[in-house]
């Protein structure tokens, strides 16, 4: 009987100690905010284009965290959907984008400067302040800062903004993936052949 009492007392004591410890830890190491939103936001492409129906990537990240579908980001493409599925442990959904939309093709805005009337509408529309210019003066796009979000095209009253595909430069060019098993490497691309026969 005493043994049982001692055992019960010991367990109770342990429970009390660990309970107190857990209680202290939950107070001491309390996580402020919702870290999942930040993680989702980090996966989104930050074009701030609003194609998901939210006024930016962070609001969409919040919406996803609150249960909204995670396939509404055409600029992110399939890869973003997959990454988000992995992060959230949700099913991989097909990307919710127009059929004819060129998903995954990087574009930047280009203002045909001689047609620009200097209305500043595109400047106000740009979510990342990538358009320079002043009223009645020609505007131009800082290509490096442009996210290709499209938002400046609509407000332009003279339709002088084009979305141009980003061509690779020497700095951004990368090697193509080899053709794969059973094929020779694409000879149209200059590839590094290892031309020396084996010894």
């Amino acid at each position, binding site marked *: 009987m005493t043994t049982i009492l001692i055992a019960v007392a010991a367990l109770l004591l342990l429970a009390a100690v660990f309970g107190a410890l857990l209680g202290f830890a939950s107070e001491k190491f309390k996580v402020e905010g919702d870290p999942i939103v930040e993680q989702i936001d980090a996966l989104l492409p930050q074009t701030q284009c609003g194609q998901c129906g939210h006024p930016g990537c962070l609001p969409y990240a919040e919406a996803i965290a609150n249960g909204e579908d995670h396939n509404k980001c055409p600029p992110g493409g399939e890869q973003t959907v997959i990454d988000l599925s992995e992060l959230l442990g949700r099913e991989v959904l097909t990307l919710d984008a127009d059929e004819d939309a060129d998903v995954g093709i990087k574009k930047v805005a280009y203002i045909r400067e001689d047609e620009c009337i200097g209305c500043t509408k595109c400047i106000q529309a740009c979510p990342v302040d990538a358009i320079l210019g002043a009223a009645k003066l020609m505007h131009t796009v800082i290509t490096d800062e442009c996210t290709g979000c499209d938002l400046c095209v609509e407000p332009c009253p003279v339709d002088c903004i084009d979305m141009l595909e980003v061509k690779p430069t020497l700095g951004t060019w990368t090697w193509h993936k080899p053709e794969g098993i059973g094929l020779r490497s694409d000879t149209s691309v200059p590839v590094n052949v*290892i031309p020396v026969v084996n010894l």
Partner: protein
Amino acid sequence: MNSPLTIKSPLAKSAKSAKNSRPIFDFHGGIHPPENKVQSNSTPIQTLALPPLLILPLNMHIGAPAKPIVNIGDRVLKGQKLADANGVVSVPVHAPTSGTITAIGPRAVQHPSGLDAPCIVLQPDGEDRWTERHPIHNWRECSPSTLITRIREAGVAGMGGAGFPSAVKVNLKQGTQIQQLVLNAVECEPYITADDLLMRERADDIVRGIHILQHLIKPHETLIGIEDNKPLAIAAMRAAIENAEKNNGGSIEVVVVPTKYPSGGEKQLIQLLTGKEVPSSGIPAQVGVVCQNIGTALAMYRAIAFGEPLISRITTITGDAVKQPGNVEVLIGTPVSHLLNHAGVSDDKLGRLIMGGPMMGFTLHALDIPVVKTSNCVIAASKEELPEPATEQPCIRCGSCAEVCPADLLPQQLYWYSKTSDLERAQQYNLMDCIECGACAYVCPSNIPLVQYYRFAKGEVRHQVAEQNKADKARERFEARQARIDKELAEKEARRQARLEASRQKALGQVDAKADASNNIDIKAIKAASLAASSAYKAAVKALKTAQAEEADASEVAALSAQVDQLKAAADQAKAAVRDAASAPTSSSGGASDTAAATQSDIHMKALKSAALEASSAYKTAVKAMKTAEENGDGNVAELRAHADTLKSTADAAKAAVRDANTGTAMPAPTSTIDPVETLKKAVLDASSAYKAAVKSVKEAELSDADNLAELRSEADVLKRKADQLKVDLRDAKAAAPNVVKESTTTEAATATQEHAPNTADPIAERAAKMKALKTAYNSANKIWKEANAALERGIREGAENIDERRAKVDLLKARAEGTRAELNELVDQAKAGIRASGSDLKSLKLEAARAESALGSKIKELEEAKKSADEERINVLYQERDMLKREAELAANALKSAVDEQGLSDV
């Protein structure tokens, strides 16, 4: 001492012949491809005729492209700087010969992508005239920084293949201690013999260059690593070093390393010579080593001792497709085609043109690509020599690739992950440490282009990093923009508040300034207001009497008598205001800065303005009445004219008072010396005389009516007169309306006065008085409108003339009454706010003040609009309303202020 390695190289014999004085280490893996060096290393370095055109890419080095500093059409001299370094990791570009700049723009360049890049195109003039050179002969006495600047300005970039700016490499961080300076003369790739020939022919200059490097970085020891397949070069270097040591006593050691690919890799060579391993993504300086190519050392010597920038280099031209393979000294920018022509290329045989070595070089896609600072070799290979790549077979997991990897990686794993684009896993297997030497692909029995896969995966990783950076930047900019927009909104709001505050302060300040000066004017104004009130009362009495005389129906008479009572109350209140005004100077003479007194004066100012308006409107009404009477041929025209004159003088007096008040800002304050009692007496006297005149005119009107009755005019005449009387009645009522407004004004004035001294008066009684006054104002306003409406209806019933005119007037009256009621409601609200304020409800007070301000603002705007349309009556009404609102706003502000004061007191 023999090498601790078991050397498998076919040239092991020569390695043994070239003795090492120190042990050498080994690195993992490596391969022994056929060397194919003999084709080109048997002839001395040749010089090349000037090419017809030189194409100078702005980016021949690692880092930012240089910035052109010449224009198209400029004539330049040999060695002249054409483009300046753009940033720290960048080097300038110089003219390799004298000539004319013919173009600056994109040209095909030495890059596997086949993309164009900006270049400067120079057409040589054949003179080859040097620009002024500034050699430094006593460089041993120069500080390293001077020499480093010279090296940088000379455009020296690593000539081994990577093209890293040499000045950056030798510009060590403060406190870095370098144990070993390693000179790379290994040249491990097949076919290339440029460094071999360079050492054979220019060993002395190379050694001088090494001395400069020693001077710059002060290493404990200097090692030149040379593969054992270059015995002539080893001998030449040793001889040169011995020769130099006789003079200078420097210590340079030639270390012969076994032939093995890729011993010439920087990390591999450092490991071979020192046994130190450069950390992943680190630089050799971290382990106390600096590694330079011997070609670079020579370029540094030329730059310092002769002042010559890097404008030429030794390039190997070899391959089965050329008749005379060998090494040539080419000017930087020489098109490859010129080089091939010199070596005698046969177009039929040419299968593949490669820049760099066969292991790490790349296929050239055009013949006009220029030789640049890093181009150590051009291979014009026949189709048999370098066939098309074989078909890729599945991996059989033989593991050969892992055996030969010099970076000690797991090429097979990297292959799987690169193929499936699993970049994360690939990076976990240190994909980024791959030096892309191609050893794995060389040994692969399945002909898998492994290096291609790694290059692809590395490109993807870099791309991802770039994307991530861009996304982060976009996020930052987006957040910054959001913050800016929010801030702008907040600032706008703050500015708006400040503006409101400023205008209020200004108004108060003006009032303060004017306060004393306008005290007498205020009294005048109050007097005028009182006069107007009494004249309205007088008119009402007249109307009542007329009605009584004509035996009008009882309800009308009762209404009129009620109206008269109202007006009498209004007149009494106006008189009370006069008394208040009279007492104001006393208080202000007691203390000019007394806020209460000042605000009171301000209120008098308002009263003055409204009084002026009322007086003028009363005058106008009277004139109208007079005109109507004249048209009808009435007998009491004279009386009416007299009445109008009285009113006119009243109005004039009021207007003058307003003018005085407006211009009286700068006036001194002698007014407080005026005896208030005397002023008061005068005001009362004026009021009573006006009243008497009115009574007299009423009596005369009665008399004329009686005459008309006695002469038994036709019933139509009576009816017409009755209509006239009604018209007068209506007008009277209209004239009375402003008085009601004024009444509320007076009430407000009283309220304000009470508000100003909440600490001295009993708050409950004060509030009660306020409420009572408000109620009176409301009742009278309501009643007057109802009466006017009733009169109109009567007129319609009796088929009187100019109904429309009357209706318009009634409508106006109604609007006024409604305005008054709204105002009353607001006043009630205000009173409530006041009550709350006495309970320290600051928030509602603030709201009240803000609301009053905005109402005033909109009213002023409306007034401006009305001024534009020049509708005099509307302007008058609006003026009145604006003044009301102004007063209300001030009251609200004062209530807030007093509440705050109270709060402060209670806090203390």
